[in-house]
């Protein structure tokens, strides 16, 4: 299926959408297509918003962000995210802010069909004060107080993986992040893949998502750039560094997006 058609069919304005991938396998091509399709008012969910959400936020696609770490890893700030929070540009961004453990468990609860999950954490921090999706419950056996996070159940989750077979089963390997949980927590799920193969070959440290857990599978080689797909590409650390300057200035950012994303062709930066 064409990525364009899959996203047009499944993602509509106002939906809650998760593009997952923890440093590795971030579905950039799908994010760019959402920008081209002009989606608005999305609630975006991601543990690490990374450059992809910096771009979606800067292009005015999102009104709310559920996240746990909003930096450019190893580089510094996400300037478009900061501009939205600090100055409301191009529009205000409501935040639902977790720790990594909190958001990971919120996905896990969603994948398990549970309304919440319990974990250690949050006690005594200001995170619990500002996030209505965090609460505390008492252990019915020991009386100990633990924290609880509300389940996250995206309307659509989108991931990038290395391979799909002819039945539409998808396999990813290497750092697996929270992708299985994001897919299984969602009402619909879309995977872009580097390669279409006849049969999946079992691999070490892999995650397989059966075809029947996915709504669409799209063949998009290089669809994780500037993130990477182990076995197919390496992380474009230079681009991550260069983004700092591109995103720092609103006009420079808009120009880059017009040239590199809106123009349509997915070219390596």
């Amino acid at each position, binding site marked *: 299926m064409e990525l364009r058609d899959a996203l047009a069919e499944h993602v509509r304005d106002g939906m809650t959408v998760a593009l997952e991938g*923890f*440093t590795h396998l971030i579905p950039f091509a799908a994010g760019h297509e959402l920008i081209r399709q002009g989606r608005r008012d999305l609630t975006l969910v991601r543990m690490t918003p990374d450059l992809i959400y910096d771009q979606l936020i800067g292009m005015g696609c999102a009104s709310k962000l559920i996240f746990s770490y909003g930096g450019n890893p190893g580089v510094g700030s996400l300037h478009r995210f900061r501009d939205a929070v600090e100055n409301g540009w191009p529009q205000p961004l409501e935040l639902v802010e977790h720790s990594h453990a909190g958001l990971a*468990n919120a996905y896990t609860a969603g994948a398990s069909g549970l309304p919440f999950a319990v974990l250690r*954490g949050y*006690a*005594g921090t200001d995170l619990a004060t500002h996030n209505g999706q965090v609460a505390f419950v008492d252990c019915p056996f020991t009386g100990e107080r633990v924290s609880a996070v509300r389940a996250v159940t995206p309307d659509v989750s989108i991931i990038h993986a290395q391979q799909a077979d002819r039945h539409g089963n998808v396999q990813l390997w290497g*750092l697996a992040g929270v992708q299985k949980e994001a897919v299984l927590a969602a009402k619909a799920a879309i995977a872009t893949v580097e390669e279409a193969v006849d049969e999946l070959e079992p691999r070490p440290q892999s995650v397989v998502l059966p075809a029947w857990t996915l709504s669409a599978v799209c063949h998009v080689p290089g669809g994780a750039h500037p993130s990477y797909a182990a076995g197919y590409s390496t*992380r474009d650390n230079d681009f991550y560094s260069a983004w700092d300057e591109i995103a720092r200035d609103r006009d420079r950012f808009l120009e880059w997006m017009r040239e590199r994303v809106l123009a349509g062709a997915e070219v390596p930066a």
Partner: protein
Amino acid sequence: MSVDQAAAATEVTPEELMTINAARGLRNGQVCLVGVGPPNAAANLARRLQAPDCVLVYESGAIGAQPMRLPLSIGDDDLAATALELVSVPEMFNFWIGGGRIDVGFLGAAQIDSHANLNTTVIGGYAEPKVRLPGAGGAPEIAACARSVLVIVRHSPRTFVERLDFVTSLAQARGQTVVITDLGVLRPAAGGELELVAVHPGVEPDDVQQATGWELRIADQLEHTEPPTQREVDELRDLRASARRPA
């Protein structure tokens, strides 16, 4: 230590000084949860020096990673490729961090208070921040669950503040906390308030007080850290250069 062995303090950057002092604290067999930046450099420096068998764990899911080069992000391919095991992020936080299996957790901060609580969320008010910082990441659970926490942070009155703008991570309840700065080393005294226990070569206690936003407790027996050795500096610089070398 002879003068020959010691690198002159002026030769090293503040970040190098912090990194070398943090690396010294690691021992073989310790399980270290490592983040980006100085912690990453410190843990990998320790592996080249006194602790070749310390176990590196990255919150991205890599357990027992043995990177050849200094990774730039915690999700670099080299970490995954050299790890003993890769686990999902929920498993990492539930079984490995939450389960209390980390001996040493490294943390940084934009603000730290007198009890080693940390802010990595905002400068200013939460609703209308002056500076929006990245946020929590794995820090709150590392602070809560690791057997000891090593905070690496540069010393300045803007960072060492009387009152945090936001409490992202609560000070270590379970074990030891050590704060390593470019001026010295602080540890909680009885009651939990940080106390200056050591200064780096050439640093006076008053320099540290000037860079601290509250009236600083100073240990009766203030120690002086050993200056970085030439080997420490060379290995650290080679490690940093390795990040730019192809695999």
